C-alpha cells in the first residue's frame, strides 16, 4: 500500500480500501444541474461488507456507478473517491478500464440490460478471463462451468451454449455473479444481486460471497431492499434518502435501534411472513429527489417528528451511541425498529 498523504480532512489516514468523501453526482436539465447524489461519505475496508439500503430512486445505483466512473454521459461528479489510495475521479480511461477489469467488479441491478443479447453466455463469461487475466480458452471454459456450479447452476455446459433470452431472470443474475467471481476482485459492488433469486438460492449465493470475503479478503458493497439480508451479511449498513446517506450503523444495532425517522419508517412498512396486515403502514407523502429538497432536512415534509428548525439547514451528521445520523433530533428520539427481534 502507498503511504497516504497528509491532508486536512476529518480522517487523515487512509487505511480503507475504498474511501469516498463528499461524492456528488449531478446531471443537466436544460440550463440547470439536477443533483442526484449529494455529499455521500462511504468507507469500506478490505474484507468488509457494507450494506446500502434506501428509497427507490434515492441514488444507490448512481453512487455505485460513480465509484467506477460509469455515470451517464455529461454527468458532473464531484468529491473524492480513493480506491487503495488512488483517485478514481481523476483516472484516465485506461486506468479506469484496468480498475474495472481486475480490482473492482459490479453486479448490475438489471442483468438483461447489461449482458450483450447476441453473444452466448459462454462468450460473456470467458471473454473477460481470456482478455484480462490471460487465461487460455479451454481453461476459461472449464472455469466458467465450475463458477456456474458454484452459483447453483449444475448444467453449465448446456448453459454456456445458451443466449441471454433463453435464461430466466435468476439464472441470468447468477451468470452475472459468476462473471464477477471469475475476476476475484478486491471489491465487488453488488447492486441487488439476489432480488431475482428464490431464498434458497439467495442463501447459497450470499454464502459464496461471504466465503470470498473471509478467505480472500474481498470487500463488498451490497445494495439491497432487504434489511434482514443486509443485517445478516454486512458489517455496517448505510441508509440513503434523497441522494444523501442519512444513517450508518453496525448491522447488529441498526434494525433494533434505528436512529433516523426514515429508517424507522422503513422497518415498520415491512410485511410479515407470519401475519397479514389489513393495510400496510407506509411513510406518508411522496418521495423527493435530491434536487427537489430545499435547504433543510429532505425528509421533513414526511417526518412525523419534524420541528420548525428541521427546515433551517441540512442536518449535519452526528454521532449517537455508535450511529452516524443526519437528523437534528437524533439524540432525543426513541424510534421503533424491528418488531420481531
Amino acid at each position, binding site marked *: 500500500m502507498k503511504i497516504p498523504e497528509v491532508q486536512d480532512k476529518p480522517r487523515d489516514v487512509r487505511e480503507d480500501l475504498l474511501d469516498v468523501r463528499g461524492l456528488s453526482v449531478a446531471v443537466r436539465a436544460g440550463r440547470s444541474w439536477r443533483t442526484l447524489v449529494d455529499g455521500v461519505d462511504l468507507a469500506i475496508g478490505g474484507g468488509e461488507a457494507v450494506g446500502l439500503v434506501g428509497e427507490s430512486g434515492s441514488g*444507490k445505483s448512481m453512487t455505485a456507478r460513480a465509484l467506477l466512473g460509469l455515470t451517464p454521459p455529461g454527468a458532473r461528479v464531484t468529491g473524492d473517491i480513493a480506491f487503495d489510495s488512488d483517485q478514481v475521479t481523476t483516472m484516465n480511461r485506461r486506468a479506469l478500464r484496468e480498475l474495472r477489469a481486475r480490482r473492482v467488479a459490479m453486479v448490475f441491478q438489471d442483468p438483461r440490460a447489461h449482458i450483450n443479447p447476441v453473444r452466448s453466455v459462454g462468450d460473456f463469461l470467458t471473454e473477460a478471463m481470456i482478455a484480462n487475466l490471460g487465461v487460455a480458452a479451454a481453461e476459461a471454459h472449464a472455469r466458467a462451468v465450475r463458477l456456474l456450479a458454484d452459483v447453483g447452476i449444475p448444467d453449465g455446459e448446456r448453459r454456456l451454449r445458451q443466449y441471454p433470452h433463453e435464461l430466466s431472470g435468476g439464472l441470468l443474475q447468477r451468470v452475472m455473479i459468476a462473471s464477477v467471481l471469475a475476476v476475484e476482485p478486491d471489491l465487488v459492488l453488488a447492486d441487488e444481486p439476489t432480488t*431475482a433469486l428464490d431464498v434458497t438460492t439467495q442463501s447459497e449465493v450470499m454464502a459464496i460471497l461471504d466465503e470470498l470475503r473471509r478467505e480472500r479478503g474481498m470487500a463488498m458493497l451490497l445494495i439491497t*431492499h432487504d434489511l434482514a439480508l443486509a443485517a445478516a451479511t454486512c458489517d455496517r449498513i448505510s441508509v440513503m434518502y434523497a441522494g444523501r446517506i442519512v444513517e450508518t450503523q453496525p448491522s447488529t444495532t441498526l434494525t433494533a435501534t434505528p436512529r433516523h425517522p426514515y429508517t424507522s419508517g422503513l422497518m415498520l412498512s415491512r410485511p410479515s411472513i407470519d401475519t397479514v396486515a389489513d393495510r400496510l403502514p407506509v411513510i406518508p407523502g411522496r418521495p423527493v*429527489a435530491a434536487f427537489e429538497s430545499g435547504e433543510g432536512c429532505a425528509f421533513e415534509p414526511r417526518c412525523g417528528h419534524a420541528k420548525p428548525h428541521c427546515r433551517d439547514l441540512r442536518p449535519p451528521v452526528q454521532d449517537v451511541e455508535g450511529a452516524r445520523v443526519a437528523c437534528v433530533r437524533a439524540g432525543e428520539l426513541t424510534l421503533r425498529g424491528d418488531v420481531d427481534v
Partner: protein
Amino acid sequence: MSDTVIEATGLRKEFGTAVAVDDVSLTLERGQSLAVVGESGSGKTTLARMLVGLETPTGGTLRVCGRPRPPGRVSSRERRRRAREMQIVFQDPYSSLDKLQRIGGVIEASLDLHFSLTPGERRKRALELLEAVGLAERHATMLPRQLSGGQRQRVAIARAIAVEPQVLVLDEAVAALDVSIQAQILNLLADIRERSGISYVFISHDLAVVHQISEVALVMSGGRVVERGPTGALLSDPQEEYTKSLRAAVPRPGWKPSRRAVSGSAANGSAASGTAAS
C-alpha cells in the same frame, strides 16, 4: 359470465429437449389472488407467458374469461379484447419499455388503445396513475434509462393497471422497490381489487409479500407444481421438503446464509417467531 377467469389444464412447455413447464393446472376465480413461488428457473415466467398468450404451450388447454385461447394469429380487435382481459407486468421492466418513449407517453399510449379520451383527459389520467405508484409529473418527461430500477418497475405497473384488465399477472413486479414504496403498491393493488374485482397472478420470491397479497399459492420446482394450498397454511405449515427449505431460507434475525440451504434447516421453518396470527 362465469366466475372463473383462468382455467388451465396440463400446461406444458418444452424448449428443445428441455421441459420448462410440466403438467401445470390451475384455476383463478374472479377477485382471487394467486401467488406463484419457487425455484429460480422452475418455469414461473414461462407459465405466466403462456397464460397471457406470449408463449405457445407444447401441451394442455387454456380458457380465459370463459373463452378458449387457441394459438395462432388473431385480429387486432381480438388482440385488444385479450389485452383488456389480461395484462402482465414483466420481470425485466427495462427490456419491456420502449427506450425512446417518454414515461408519460408510455402510459398515454396504453390508455389510447383502450379508451376514448380527449388528449387532456388522457394526460390527466396518466399523471394520476403515475402518482398512484409514487412517481411525479417530472418523471413523465423522462426516458426509461433516466429512471432507477424501481421507478421503471412502477412505470410498468402503472401501464398495466391503466388498461383496467380483469386479470393482472405480476412477475416479480415489486422486487426492486424499497419496503415503504412496496407497501404503497401492495395497498394500491388491494384497493383496486376491492373496487373492481380484478384477479392477480402474483409471482414473487418474497414470501412475506406473497403472504400479504394472496389467498392461495403454488410452489414450483423443476417445472412442476410441488405444493399448493391456502397461502397462510402453506407458509406456516409447509408439507413438502422444497417448501420447507424455502421457508427456512428467509433472512431473519439470527439467520446466516449457507451453501447447503436445503439440508437440515427444514425443521425450524414453521417454528420461527411464534404463531401471532392466522
